[in-house]
């Protein structure tokens, strides 16, 4: 397994090996699916759309539908205007969505298509909406694409109605699973917060099997709700990398006060999220949520011996990593390496600050790096556990280290669509995953005389 990975880490200038990120349009497509009756449309070669649909489908095991401008060589020479115009006409005639969310690709960006102008010059049927986001694959990562599409929802849809009293809170859930979005809604509902959450993929990419296929499932935030977001009192943006751009856009466009928070993963970040909702909305803590928190603390005390002091290396997307690094430190673990493929110096500062506060002088944080580097560093400084997406399984096997699958994408296990990692319940699930991974590994590798019934 990964037999060619050798040697000590050395910075490379040309070659990325086993990337820890992918390109913008796939994140934009995922965000767009969180709008009710929305068909994402990829403006570029059909291969992009095909790859993005495939990868999202592998992760969600649910139908992921999107259309494409199907560029040919001619479109590259003459521009993609007629492809997009014809494409939109066909899309509305044949698939009848309420909304089309256009994302660009490296192809349409490189040839310089002005998507905004093209859409303006297209006859969009009455009552239908077309939004777009520029998502060049050569900048940022899939997280940037998600963020850009969320921002586009505000730019093209949200409105502040003058003279109308501001009410309610916007929640931007960030690049998390449908299960997490469902859990965020449950928490806000239990706290009696009047809220609008967008995007919301919870009943779009994790739909029930009823024997009937509906191209547009019941879920997703409606255009009306996103429009109304401009009249909210505040925006709680979860995950700075995926949500702050939309929150700041709401502030700029509609004067809605933004609060940028961590993803509510782990006890501290969940506490902070709940405190913010209580602060903004008033009211008291919900008893059932308090009960869940108590259970979480109880388990953290009871099973800490299984993970306290263990070394863990984490990779994935910034928002998940920021919250997870905080949580593993709270569990008494030692995050020795935190790595993302996504650019962003703020990430380094935030993680380094956590290391400093926890007195972790040896720990390393890296951005714009890849899994080859991650593997080389683990070889040089071994760990007890890896936390990351499915792509970590090669390294886990090569180094005989257990892997806890977290983040996006998870292509080889089920559960992420249905069981959240956010909130107190989610934190409990993370502890279950970590302890199970460590103990399963011990049970499979320990001497027979050390194999024990009760652990």
């Amino acid at each position, binding site marked *: *397994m990964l*037999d*060619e990975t050798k*040697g000590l880490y050395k910075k490379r200038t*040309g*070659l*990325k*090996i*086993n*990337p820890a*990120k*992918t*390109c913008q349009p796939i994140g934009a497509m995922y965000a767009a699916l969180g709008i009710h009756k929305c068909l994402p449309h990829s403006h*570029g*070669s*059909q*291969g992009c759309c*095909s*790859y*993005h*649909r*495939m*990868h999202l*489908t*592998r992760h969600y*095991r*649910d*139908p*992921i*539908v999107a*259309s*494409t*401008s*199907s*560029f040919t*060589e*001619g*479109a*590259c020479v003459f521009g993609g205007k007629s492809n997009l115009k*014809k494409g939109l*006409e*066909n*899309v509305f*005639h*044949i*698939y009848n969505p309420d909304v089309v969310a256009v994302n660009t*690709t*490296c*192809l349409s960006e*490189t040839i310089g298509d002005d998507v905004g102008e093209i859409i303006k010059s297209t006859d969009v049927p009455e009552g239908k909406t077309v939004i777009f986001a520029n998502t*060049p*694959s*050569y*900048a940022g990562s899939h997280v940037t694409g998600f963020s850009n599409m969320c921002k586009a929802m505000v730019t093209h849809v949200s409105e502040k109605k003058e003279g109308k009293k501001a009410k309610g809170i916007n929640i931007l859930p960030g690049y998390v699973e449908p299960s997490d979005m469902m859990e965020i809604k449950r928490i806000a509902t239990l706290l009696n917060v009047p809220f609008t959450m967008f995007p919301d993929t919870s009943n779009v990419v994790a739909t029930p*099997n009823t*024997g*009937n*296929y509906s*191209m547009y499932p019941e879920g997703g935030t409606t255009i009306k709700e996103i429009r109304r977001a401009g009249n909210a009192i505040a925006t709680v943006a979860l995950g700075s990398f995926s949500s702050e751009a939309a929150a700041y856009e709401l502030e700029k466009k509609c004067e809605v006060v933004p609060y940028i928070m961590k993803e509510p993963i782990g006890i501290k970040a969940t506490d902070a999220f709940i405190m913010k909702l209580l602060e903004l909305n008033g009211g008291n803590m919900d008893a059932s949520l308090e009960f869940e928190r108590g259970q979480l603390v109880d388990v953290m005390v009871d099973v800490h011996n299984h993970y306290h002091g263990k070394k863990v290396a984490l990779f994935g997307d910034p928002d998940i990593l920021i919250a997870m690094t905080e949580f593993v430190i709270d569990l008494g673990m030692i995050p020795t390496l935190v790595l993302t493929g996504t650019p962003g110096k703020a990430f380094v500062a935030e993680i380094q600050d956590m290391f400093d506060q926890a007195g972790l002088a040896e720990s390393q944080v890296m951005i714009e790096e890849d899994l080859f580097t991650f593997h080389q560093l683990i070889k040089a400084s071994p760990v007890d556990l890896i936390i990351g997406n499915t792509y970590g399984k*090669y390294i886990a096997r090569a180094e005989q280290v257990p892997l806890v699958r977290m983040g996006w994408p998870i292509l080889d296990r089920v559960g992420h669509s249905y069981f959240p990692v956010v909130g107190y319940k989610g934190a409990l699930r993370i502890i279950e995953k970590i302890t199970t991974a460590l103990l399963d590994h011990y049970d499979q590798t320990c001497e027979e005389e050390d194999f024990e019934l009760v652990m």
Partner: protein
Amino acid sequence: MSESKKLVDKVLDIYPAKVMKNRKSHMVIKDASVKQEIAANTRAIPGIITNRGCAYAGCKGVVIGPIVDMVHIVHGPVGCSYYAWGTRRNKGKAREGGQNFLEYAFTTDMQESDIVFGGEKKLRAAIDEAVELFHPKAISISATCPVGLIGDDIHAIARDKSKEHGLKILAFSCEGYKGVSQSAGHHIANNKLMTDVIGTIDTPAKEFSINLLGEYNIGGDEWEIARVLTKIGYNIISTMTGNGAIDEIANAHKADLNVIQCHRSINYVAEMVETKYGLPWIKVNFIGVEGFSKALRDMAKYFDDPALTARTEAVIAEETTSIEEEMAGYKALLDGKTAVLFVGGSRAHHYQGLLREIGIETIVAGYEFGHRDDYEGRDVIPYIKVDADSRNIEEIHVEKDEKKYSLRIPASRAEQLKKEIPWASYDGLLSEMKDGTLVIDDLNHIETEQIIKILKPEFFGSGIKDKYMVQKMGVYAKQMHSYDYSGPYAGYQGAVNFSRDVAAGILTPAWKYITAPWYKEPLLSGKVEGVEQVC
């Protein structure tokens, strides 16, 4: 009006006039009494939710990527390399003392500044770093969309760096916008194998030596095929390209026969190899018990060696006997069921025989990126109009290599053999279909939905993008590109694996729970005793 005609009308009715006219030409109701023509390998309509991919996917993803001992560098932004990393299930192993890079994805991860100022510097650095880190036998460079647009000269870089480092570097201009589907990428990749690889190593071949063309070792198919072929006494010089090794492909011209599995992706290479080096090709189908046995017998006829023929018959007898009972068991479970197949440029044809062996009849079939010859047979090739999209894909012409050419079979016997075995011949998918069944090219989302709704087949064989939509409608859908993470499906053991998986998919108890009991049984009106008191 036939059922198929009603279905076609209903599907076409959804479309605006122009789209309707276009899509109509891609649909044919089989009628053996007339010569039928189908539109294929034409561009997809913008806005239509097609399943097709791009030239890059066909080049790097399908043809070049499976070669195990090369570092495959994708020159472009990160996504294209990322999505083609470990997702196709082309398995491979390192040769003894050799390398295997299938677990790796290499990309130049182009950034905005590379788009503006050019990405050549980065590509050069990437090659240097790959050589320094891995010392591979060879490197490939696959171009993605922006590379062609900004004008990076990947071919010049390949030449320079090849000289500098003393290793083979193959550059492919397979930008995603080229052609109309993956098929363009197959051509671009195979042309390069023809011009730069095949014929560059001359290790003498042993007897009964063959190449397997258009076999990609998905789920280990090639290993199951090779198990049986080796048992009979064949020497497989190279496989293009499943579990392929660059030096083996370089030596391919030393074989005595090319056998072609996937006609679409590689038939032109076989043609060129025959012209240049003299070894002929036959079309085989390694899928299904009868298909595989026929392929083995055709190969034996070609070599015309009594001992080989006897071993062929002995192995066929041994292998088929060992699986007979199990296959009969699956047939008993599945007899009378129907299938819709939409896959590839070959598989929608290849699997029909195997499905029939377990009692399943194919009622609709089509290719995602097939050409007219894949439907209508090779006779149509001279009459296919080359449109602007295909003209952009380089056609190469080869001539007889006077030093390396050798005629394998004397012309007189060749003429006789051509009557007995599919020597350079393929009749296409339409020939397999029963009258009244439907053939659709480039089947799309809404057509799939309509077909499944109306025909309610028990089996839908396609890809991941339409799998879950079909299953939401209560019909088992199997990924025929990746085999739903199972396999091998080729050869004798593969036939058993496939049948087992199909039986499990159709018969798994979950289906009977789709309708909840409260929708099936009358609900008694009544109330729970004591509820009021408790409240």
